[in-house]
């Protein structure tokens, strides 16, 4: 999946001469946290976040004293150079940038820093929810498998034999080293025969544990 598939294509922007007050209003009106700062030809020159604006705003204890601080142009507080991503980058590459740089929005730019969109952490999170398949009616089957080749193929065959559609699949490491958890969402209300089949091949299927008892 590429950045251009999930980015916001027409983000709210601001120009460098506009005031911090205007930036504050844009954030409030649109319920957003980031404003790319652009020139008239859409060249990206900076970014302001709600945090930058908060730093420039008067303390709530002195609201009446120095309101003129909000009249400065945005260029005084914007951050640059900007960490950006490209429309054809992979989402997982872009997602790494959030953690590495402690940021939560990435302007998407092409040649000559032309702004094409904005990719926020929220967009990435929504995509993750879709990838887990949690929005489709399904039963959830978790299988503990040794971390070696062929395990997924073995278990997938069982779903095929039962004519059951898999709507999503996640693989993640188990807390026991050398083991993985395969998490399937499958389109059936009655997974009993499938679970029995997987168990008969010697695999451990995780389910609601009878409380208080060790498995």
């Amino acid at each position, binding site marked *: 999946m590429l950045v251009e598939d999930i980015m916001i294509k027409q983000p709210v922007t601001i120009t460098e001469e506009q005031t911090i007050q205007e930036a504050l209003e844009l954030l409030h009106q649109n319920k957003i946290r980031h404003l790319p700062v652009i020139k008239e030809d859409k060249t990206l020159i900076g970014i302001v976040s709600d945090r930058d604006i908060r730093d420039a705003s008067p303390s709530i204890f002195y609201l009446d004293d120095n309101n003129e601080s909000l009249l400065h142009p945005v260029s005084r507080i914007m951050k640059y150079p900007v960490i950006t991503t490209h429309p054809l980058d992979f989402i997982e590459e872009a997602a790494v940038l959030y953690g590495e740089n402690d940021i939560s929005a990435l302007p998407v730019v092409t040649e000559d820093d032309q702004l094409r969109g904005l990719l926020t952490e929220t967009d990435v999170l929504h995509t993750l929810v879709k990838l887990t398949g949690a929005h489709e009616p399904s*039963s959830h*089957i978790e299988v503990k498998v040794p971390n070696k080749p062929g395990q997924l193929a073995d278990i997938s065959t069982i779903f095929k034999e039962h004519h059951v559609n898999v709507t999503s699949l996640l693989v993640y490491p188990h807390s026991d080293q050398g083991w993985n958890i395969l998490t399937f969402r499958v389109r059936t209300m009655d997974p009993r025969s499938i679970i029995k089949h997987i168990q008969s091949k010697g695999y451990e299927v995780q*389910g609601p544990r*009878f*409380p208080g008892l060790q498995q």
Partner: protein
Amino acid sequence: MRQDAIFVYSEKQLNYKFNDDHPFNHLRLHLTYDLLRMAGALPLSSVSPPRVATDEEIGLIHDRNYINAVKAAGENKLDEAIAHSYGIGTEDTPTFPHMHEAAASLVGGTLTAVDMVMEGKSEHALNLGGGLHHGFRGKASGFCVYNDSSIAIEYMRRKYGVRVLYVDTDAHHGDGVQWSFYDEPSVCTFSIHETGRYLFPGTGSVHEKGAGKGYGLSINIPVDAFTEDDSFLECYETAFKELVEFYKPDVIFTQNGADAHYYDPLTHLAVSIQTYMKIPQIAHELAHKYCNGKWIAVGGGGYDMWRVVPRAWGLVWLAMTNQTHILKKPIPKAWIEKWEDVPDTDLPVDWTDPAVPPVPRRAEIQEKNLRTLEKALYHIRLEQG
């Protein structure tokens, strides 16, 4: 003459049958009917046969193309790949001869129940053949072809202009009905079910609250696996009472799945028959207090069809008709003798369950459910002050 309650049933409803090995088996209807008849609790004058729903009525919720696909599948004239795209011909909802007619008659049963109540011929009505709450606009899901409950609610909204409170106590989330009315302010849906952590359909989290004008009117209480009577009933009763007080519906529509019982093979809840005594009693009481008695009830899931479903569903009728004194008597011998040779298990001899050892960590589960209940009702309590 105005009746207290109508029991919608005919043996034709048993035609909704996938195959012999399928867990969804409407022989349950016959077993329940028999049990009530033999217990002397169901005079023939209270029984009304279901009508068959028309295509227009089914089309209140379902897409035309989907209805045509179901018809074709029932005549064995539908390509397998196309059938799959409609969720039929799968392990869950296999095709069977005349499946459209069978499904339309379950929908018709619920519409019969609705008309009886809305036209004032009866205070309450029960169609145990309905409650197929997983059916989607253009797709069969979870054993359900047509969603009789969504259709009946939409039918009531249009024909009678009423506000409906839908209450779903099946162990699975009532997803089909919830999504039908997710942004509709004249329908409030409330589903209490086992958490979707492992169980189908996986939705029904406490954060699904509705959208647009219907925001706040989808209520979900996902309870933990191994929840028992006290905790289940605490959540159900508290939420139901506060919701009916807040929403002030004109009519109550309850879905009475009986698959939260500890014997049920498909789910992981641990309630006993005690819960199935209380569920309809509370619905009955609230229908009289807030809706002039207007209460329509349907069936739903329930996969221990010998030990659990006939009693649980019989209890809905007994509560509806104030005949709970019958519970002091044993299960009629005639019923046991008629059916005991069919299943592999013994049939119950009493309306109640024998005591079982408490589930370990009961207190923790109860506490967790209580927090879920608080989250589910948070916005309503805020508004009520």
